[in-house]
């Protein structure tokens, strides 16, 4: 089953509910790369708050998604990593160093707004 992608203005929101299979994750990467261009989105938020494990494949795919969407003009923010998941990930060395993170969907949206504000100011 494909992971649903919601469009809200110029932002795409993905909420990963159950633990996704590797295929579903790869499909998500393809879908996002495609839709970011099609909807001319400026930001992607991936909510992982329902996940109680994050393995190396999942975190590598998320990094892949972040880089891909960045090339297509949209920032990706991963939100809602749970305390225990964050702790386990650092123990495994999965620090997702180049991916932006935020506490939850709300913070993530604010973060995107700040980024947009920043680029607008820089242009002026």
């Amino acid at each position: 089953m494909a992971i649903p992608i919601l469009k809200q203005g110029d932002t795409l929101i993905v909420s990963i509910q159950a633990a996704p299979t590797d295929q579903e994750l790869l499909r998500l990467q393809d879908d996002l790369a495609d839709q970011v261009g099609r909807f001319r989105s400026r930001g992607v938020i991936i909510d992982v708050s329902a996940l109680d494990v994050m393995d190396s494949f999942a975190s590598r795919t998320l990094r892949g998604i972040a880089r891909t969407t960045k090339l297509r003009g949209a920032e990706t923010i991963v939100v809602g990593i749970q305390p225990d998941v964050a702790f386990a990930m650092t123990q495994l060395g999965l620090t997702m160093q180049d991916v932006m993170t935020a506490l939850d969907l709300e913070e993530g949206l604010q973060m995107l707004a700040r980024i947009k504000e920043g680029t607008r100011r820089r242009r002026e």
Partner: protein
Amino acid sequence: MPAIQSIALTARNNFSEADIERRLKLVGLDTEDKARIATIRDIVVKAADEFTAAFFDHLGRSTDLASMFRGSVMEDARRQKRDHLMAMVSGQYGKEYVDQRLNLGRLYSAVGMDVPVFLGAFHHMLRAISDAVMKASREPAGSFQAFLSLQKVGFLDIGVIVDVLIDERERIIGAQQDAIRELSTPVLQVRNGLLILPIIGVLDSQRAKQLTDSLLHSIRANRARVVVMDITGVVAVDSKVANHLIQTVAAARLMGATVIITGLSADVAQALVALGVDLSKVNTVGDLQGGLEEAEEILGYRNLPSAHRSEDR
């Protein structure tokens, strides 16, 4: 080593028959010894009061007996010591005997007797027994053998009592460590979205884990965006501690919070550079004040002098 350790641990509760068996084997006490001890039984029983006195007189020379054994505790200790001497030559070294030793050990522990002090007094008492045995002896070689057998019992006793003393000390140290752990990991909110985490004491992996855990939960509970971690009070910062800090920072970042580490003293900074620890990915500021200012900047706060104060000038 593990066998010895497991013996020590049983001192906290009670000894099983197997533990006692093992201890008897360790000191090498056998039926021949018991027979030899029987030959000097009368001498010891007759002068038991004298030997008890020898033990406590020696104690009195190295410590202040009156302040150590208050009130009836002194009577109790003397009585137990006397019983001990009787039991030492009884030939019965089973559960009952060891339990008596444990009780006496707990009494010593309760009055705060040190291991060397106890050993000194015990040795003195054995000395007094040996003198008495040799004096009453018609056949010195045999009596000496009998005394050596009794000494094995003595070493069994020392083993049990020292275990109780050490065990009690370890229990106290453990309880204190727990208390320090409890006390020393507060996570405080200073402003909306800004937490400070002052770390005091020694940062071992156990504590680093606990600290990271409580920080992550506080980040979620307080919806924090910036955390200032102050390590002024950390006793020693080496590569291990630095690694713990880096992991904590990485974990907090995964939850969307920026961590600023403050309180790296000149010595610590130099030590870390000398060790080759890479803290370049970590946001560090010299002191807590600087860290808070930086955090407020990230959060978009700006401190302005109040209009009132500028009028005063």
